[in-house]
C-alpha cells in the first residue's frame, strides 16, 4: 500500500532550484533510501515533507491526506516524525527527557493537569519513562539516559534523535544521515536497530551517505542529483545505473 506519495515537488531559493519536480512513492513497511551527492536537495526534500519548508509546487499525500502547507507539529500528529542532519537535541535536558519530549503527541497532560500532577498524570509519566528507556535500548543509547544532551558524543545524538522521533509513535520515520559520526560497529548496530524498527511496523525513509548501510538495509532507493530524481529502484539496479555512477563523478557506487 502506498503510504507517502510525492508528486512534482519543487522548491527554489532565490535562483537556485533545490528540489526540481521530484515524484516518488513510499510503500508501507519498507525502508526507502534517498541518496545523492552533496547539495542534491535531500535535506530540502525532508524539510518539504515535514512542514519545515513550503514547496513552490507539487503535492505530498500521506495516507490519503494532503500534507503540503501543514505546520511541522501537525505533520507529527499525522504520523510522520523526523531526525535532523544537524542534530536538534535539547542540550539542557537529559537524554531520557529528550525522548520524553518526543512523546508530546502521545501524552495528554495540559497546563492545569501538569500543575496539579494528579495520580493519572504521574502514572502516564511513569509509563512514558519506561517506554523512553525501551526506545533508548532499541537504538543502543541507554547508557547515556541520564547524561545532559549537550554532553553526549555526536554519533549518540543521532541515535537519541531516532529514539525521540520514535517516541511520537510515527507510521513513517524520516532519518537524515543517521550513520554520520558512527564507526563501523556502531553503524552495524544502527542497521540492526533500523531493521527492528521496520519489523515493529514503522516505515522508514532514510537519507544516508554510508552506501554500505544504504545498500544493506533499503528495499528501494531514490537517487537525487542537483534537485532532480535521476534514478529509482532496488539497490542492485541502482548500483548498475549509469546515471547514478555518473552523478557520483564516475566513482562506482561501493558494493554492499
Amino acid at each position, binding site marked *: 500500500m502506498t503510504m507517502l506519495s510525492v508528486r512534482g515537488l519543487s522548491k527554489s531559493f532565490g535562483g537556485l532550484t533545490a528540489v526540481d519536480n521530484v515524484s516518488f512513492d513510499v510503500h508501507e513497511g519498507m525502508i526507502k533510501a534517498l541518496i545523492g551527492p552533496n547539495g542534491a536537495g535531500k535535506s530540502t526534500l525532508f524539510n518539504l515533507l*515535514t512542514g*519545515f519548508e513550503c514547496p513552490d509546487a507539487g503535492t505530498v499525500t500521506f495516507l490519503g491526506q494532503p500534507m503540503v502547507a501543514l*505546520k*511541522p*507539529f501537525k505533520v*507529527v*500528529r499525522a504520523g510522520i*516524525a*523526523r*531526525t*535532523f542532519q544537524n542534530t*536538534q*537535541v*535539547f*542540550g*539542557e*535536558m537529559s537524554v531520557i*527527557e529528550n525522548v*520524553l*519530549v*518526543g*512523546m*508530546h*503527541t502521545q*501524552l*495528554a*497532560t*495540559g*497546563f492545569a*493537569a*501538569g*500543575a*496539579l*500532577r494528579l495520580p493519572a*498524570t504521574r502514572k502516564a*509519566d511513569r509509563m512514558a519513562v519506561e517506554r523512553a528507556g525501551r526506545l533508548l535500548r532499541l537504538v543502543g543509547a541507554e547508557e547515556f539516559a541520564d547524561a545532559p*544532551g549537550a554532553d553526549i558524543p555526536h554519533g549518540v545524538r543521532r541515535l537519541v534523535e531516532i529514539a*525521540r*522521533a520514535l*517516541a*511520537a509513535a510515527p507510521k513513517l520515520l524520516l532519518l537524515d544521515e543517521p550513520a554520520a559520526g558512527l564507526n563501523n560497529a556502531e553503524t552495524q548496530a544502527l542497521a540492526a536497530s533500523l531493521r527492528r524498527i521496520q519489523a515493529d511496523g514503522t516505515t522508514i525513509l532514510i537519507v544516508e551517505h554510508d552506501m554500505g548501510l544504504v545498500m544493506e538495509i533499503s528495499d528501494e532507493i531514490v537517487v537525487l542529483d542537483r534537485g532532480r530524481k535521476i534514478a529509482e529502484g532496488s539497490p542492485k539496479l541502482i548500483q548498475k545505473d549509469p546515471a547514478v555512477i555518473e552523478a557520483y563523478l564516475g566513482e562506482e557506487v561501493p558494493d554492499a
Partner: protein
Amino acid sequence: MSARYGLDRAIARVAPVLIVALVAAVPLLTDDRYLFKVLTFVGLNVIVVTGLALLFGYAGQISLGHAAFFGIGAYSVGYLTATRALPWLAAVAIGVALASVVGLLLSLPMLRLKGHYLAMATLAFSEILGVFFVEASAITGGNDGLRGIPFPSVGPFKIATPGASYLLVWGVAIIVVVLASNLVRTRPGRALRAVHGTELGAQACGIDTGRLRVQVFTLSAGLAGLAGALYAGVVGFVSPTTFSLEFSVLLVAMVVLGGTGSITGPVVACVALTLLPYIDALVPGLPRDAVAFLQDWEADISGIVMIGVLLFAPGGVAGMLRRSRRAGDAS
C-alpha cells in the same frame, strides 16, 4: 550514585515541608509589623518571579513588562474594591483575568519576535501602560494613585493585620510555587524547556511552539496580575511609581541570578534580592549607614550581581547547584 539520588530525593521531599513550617512559624516567633510587611513583599515578588521563571527561565522568553501586569492586577483590585465596592475575591479574579487577557493579546503579535526584539516590545508595552496608569486618572487616580483600598475580605473574614496579610500572601505564594514545580516536571514543562533548547527540535516533536509560547506568556502575566491584585488589598494604596521599569528589571535579575530551568533558584534569588534593601528588619544591630548605603545603591547592586552572574556563572544559583551535584557524582 543511587544513594546520592536517594539523598537528593529525601531532601526534595523534606525541603518543601520545612519551608512551609518556617513560613507558618514566623507569626509565632514575632509580631513585628515592619518585618511582616517586608516578608509580605517578598511573598508577592515570589509569585511574580515564579511566573517569570516559567516564561524566561524555562521557555527562554524575556519580558521587561512584568511590572505592568503587576500594575494591571493592582489597579483592578484598587478600582473595583475602593471605587466600585466589589467584593475583594471578585475583584482579584477580575484583576488576574484582565492581566492574563492583556498578556494573551500582547503575546499574539509578539510570536515572531525573539531575544532583543521581544525585550523591546515588552518594554514598550510597559511604558505605554505606565503612561496609561498616570493619564487614566478617572480610574487610576493619576499621579496620586488610589488610596483607601479596603483590606482583603472573604465574606465575614477580614484580613486586616500585617500578620494575616503575610499569611495570605505566603499561602498563595506557596501554592503557586508548588503548582509551578509540578508543571515543570510534566509534559508542558518539558515542552517549555524544549522550545528554549531548539525550536526546530521542539516542532519536530509535535509541539505547537506558537501556542505554547502564548500559553506561557498568558500564565506568566496572570501570575504577575495575581501578585498585583494581592498587593493592592494588602498595602491599601496603589501609585504609578510601583510599576516602573526598574521593578521589571529587578524581576528579570532575580530569574537570571536564580538560574534558568529552575523554580527554586529564582525563588531563592527573589527572597535575597527583595530582602536586601530591608536588611535592617532582619538584622537589628546593623549600622544605619550600612543600611542606607544598601537602600541607596540597591538597583546598582542588583545590576552588578546580574552582570557578574552572566559573566561568571551563567547558570545562576540553580546552575551552580547542578554543577556541584554532577561533580559529586563524578567523584
